């Protein structure tokens, strides 16, 4: 596991497009596949995949477009999502379980339960969110292997 390439990290980059629900989750799926290929424990992969997927879905639901980046090191995975979108006016409120601003058509798909951000916090060892209303949101997460 501790070969040179892993110490430098594996870098994965994805472009996300708002409202593209058919592709939503593909980036997280690819991150999961790479983690499986390098032999990370399944319960760790599950936490990374779930937090990545929640964050990816959030961009698809709320933003116009975004970039997702995963850096996989031997001892941890870091994920960063940066979107151009409406931003989050009240982050503390958005972090509350059950709070959601997702519209009706999103709820019909099974999302908008208000569990996305709390779930990201629960699955990760480090979580940070920065948002500017009318500009966009940046989420960074880290999970130790």
């Amino acid at each position: 596991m501790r070969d040179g390439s892993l110490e430098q990290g594996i870098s994965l980059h994805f472009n996300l497009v708002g409202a593209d629900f058919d592709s939503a989750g593909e980036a997280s799926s690819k991150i999961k596949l790479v983690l499986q290929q390098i032999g990370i424990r399944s319960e760790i992969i599950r936490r990374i995949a779930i937090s990545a997927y929640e964050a990816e879905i959030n961009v698809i639901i709320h933003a116009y477009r975004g970039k997702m980046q995963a850096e996989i090191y031997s001892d941890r995975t870091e994920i960063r999502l940066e979107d151009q979108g409406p931003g989050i006016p009240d982050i503390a409120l958005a972090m509350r379980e059950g709070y959601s601003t997702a519209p009706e058509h999103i709820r019909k798909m099974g999302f908008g339960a208000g569990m996305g951000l709390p779930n990201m916090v629960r699955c990760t060892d480090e979580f940070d969110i920065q948002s500017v209303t009318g500009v966009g949101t940046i989420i960074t997460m880290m999970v130790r292997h």
Partner: protein
Amino acid sequence: MRLSQILPVLKAEVLCGTKWLGREAETVYGSDLLSDVLAFTTEETLLLTGLTNIQVIRTAEVSDLAGIVFVNGKRPAVEILAMAEEKGIPLLITKLPMYEACGLLYQNGLKGCM
């Protein structure tokens, strides 16, 4: 309980993934809220749901679910089946509503994710 043993309990039909019916479902979760599935399930859980969209398959994939049972006889589109097959997720369908399906599995010894 193996998925193959769950089939007769729910009078379910296999939509795809016959080769994975030997898989054990450790627990069961019934929900139409995917974020709840992502938040409250554990690995090798069988999901019962009325949702038939592509995101259900994605959710099952990232959550390492044992499989999905569509309740109320709701049948997903062909491309959904193809995706589940590719991801290794067995899909079952039952005419039973959610409550009855969950009740029967509980009666047969399967517990929730708590």
